[in-house]
């Protein structure tokens, strides 16, 4: 058991090293960091004017939306491309034959590869999150600067305790929106969603003959997964009017495709709404179990694959 774990860890570390060397992933990561950082400029396009706190409600929302959106978007593509290339590259370079000729089980090989992808995604998300934190800090400073300059126009406001109290309230609103601890919850949920995408891509790549097929199919499943809730609701509440084919199709989608729309609660966090950790943990547990099921199916397919 321990030796098996060690083999998985070794393969995972190698997978991470190989992935980090891939130019396409590095370029994606650079784009992601640039886009996250640029969200502070995009926010400037939002409605100008208004009182300081009102103005920054909107601009901070923009920074959060575009920052987390970039993390989700580029995280998705990094997960998709790096996972889709895993097995085809091993086959192309013929390294898979060398590895599997050693006392390494196919399941260990696959789990090691997936472990490496998780490490890669954790690294990328951490870097993007760091850029996000810096961007939010810049936005906070811009916001506080505007609040200060607005009150400066009132003349000798610092000697009027009532005005000082109003200033402090406005500044506190900006700080509380920027330093929202729930943003950690949002990034963790985004990470879980991206790992699920990687698991789907891994499953498809175990039987796909080309990486392009894996990329396109995973992308389609990703889109369908955001509408899975609709299919499930239709399937569970359908009346006599639906045909057997409709029923079979939505039933199949409901049973096989994950519900990724549940992860859009990240939007609620970014809009400033409170999401209890209990709900987020429920969602994380769902994602974890789903990944385990997908890995189990991947192992079965890969075990029987002719290489």
């Amino acid at each position, binding site marked *: 058991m321990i030796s098996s774990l060690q083999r998985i860890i070794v393969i995972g570390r190698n997978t991470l090293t190989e992935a980090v060397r891939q130019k396409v992933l590095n370029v994606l990561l650079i784009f992601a960091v640039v886009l996250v950082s640029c969200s502070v400029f995009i926010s400037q*396009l939002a*409605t100008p004017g*208004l009182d300081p706190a*009102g103005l920054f*409600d*909107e601009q901070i*929302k*923009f920074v959060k*939306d*575009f920052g987390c*959106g970039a993390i*989700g*978007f580029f995280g998705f593509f990094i997960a998709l491309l790096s996972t889709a290339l895993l097995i085809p590259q091993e086959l192309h370079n013929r390294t898979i034959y060398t590895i599997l000729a050693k006392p390494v089980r196919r399941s260990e090989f696959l789990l090691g590869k997936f472990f490496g992808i998780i490490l890669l995604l954790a690294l990328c998300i951490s870097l993007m999150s760091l850029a996000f934190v810096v961007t939010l800090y810049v936005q906070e400073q811009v916001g506080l600067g505007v609040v200060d300059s607005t009150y400066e126009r009132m003349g000798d406001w610092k000697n009027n*305790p*009532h005005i*000082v*109290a*109003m200033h402090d*309230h406005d500044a506190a*609103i900006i700080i509380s929106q920027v330093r929202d601890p729930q943003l950690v919850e949002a990034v963790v949920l985004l990470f879980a*969603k991206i790992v699920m995408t990687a698991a789907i891509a891994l499953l498809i790549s175990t039987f796909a003959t080309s990486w392009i097929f894996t990329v396109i199919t995973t992308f389609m499943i*990703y*889109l369908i997964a*955001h*509408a899975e*809730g*609709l299919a*499930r*609701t239709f399937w*569970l509440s359908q009346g006599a009017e639906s045909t057997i084919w409709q029923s079979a199709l939505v039933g199949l989608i*409901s*049973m*096989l495709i994950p*519900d*990724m729309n*549940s*992860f*859009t*609660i990240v*939007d*609620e966090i*970014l*809009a*400033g*709404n409170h*999401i*209890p950790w209990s*709900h987020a943990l*429920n*969602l994380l547990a*769902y994602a974890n*179990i*789903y990944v385990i*099921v997908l890995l*189990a*199916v991947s192992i*079965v397919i890969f*075990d*029987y694959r*002719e290489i």
Partner: protein
Amino acid sequence: MTTLPLAIRLRRALLIALILGLWAPFKIAWEQNLAKQQDALRYNGIVMTRRLRDDLGQGLTIGVLSGMRNIVADLIWLQVTTAWEDQEWFRMGGLINLCTSLQPRAPVFWDLGGWQLAWNASVAASHDPKQPDELRRLKAGRFWVDKGLDVYLRGLENNPQYWRLWSDTAMLYQQRLKDYHKAAYYYQQASERPNAPAYLERFPAIMYGLAGDDQAAYDSWKALWERLTPAQREMKEHWKEKIESNIRQLEQKLSIPKEKRVFPN
């Protein structure tokens, strides 16, 4: 690549069917539970309808379906700003509705959307140089005030904890509709919400004063005074001296018996 023997292929298919078959009922039950929780917590913003799809267009619909609902809403919001600058009020109203439909739990869209309609569109319409008839101008102005009010009220249904929406609705009743009793009610609600600034606590009483309802104003000032602890009264943001002077004035004006006064001396 050689083809696997049928028996092996069957065994593989059976194993996969077994794993997925065992997982499917749990999966569906779990997802239903998650959806129920999210419904109860009012997280689910929109259901993709044909009309919404037509309004969004193909590109933005794919954005929504890819889980980028908030970014799509933000991009549409940028068009609201453009429509405002171009003074295209009906287009702006439609775009605000689209944003609030996509993200009904984002208070900032309701807040600024209501302001755009009730103030910017309304003031522009009531001062429209192309409309010589003053009555028509006033009617157009009122039309947009009502549209803005509708946005605020729907926003409050979706975000009842957001103090600024209550306060903005109150301000609309106060400054545009001159309905001070309603303004007092909404300011009162705003002051009771989390993170509301302390100055809002005084506004209901001020509104009753503007409405000429001295008794209600006195009751409101008195209730505020009694609600504040002695320590809170000393805090600068509560403006102790203003509350005190208003209560004293109204006690004089309403001839409140000395034994019932907050400040008998």
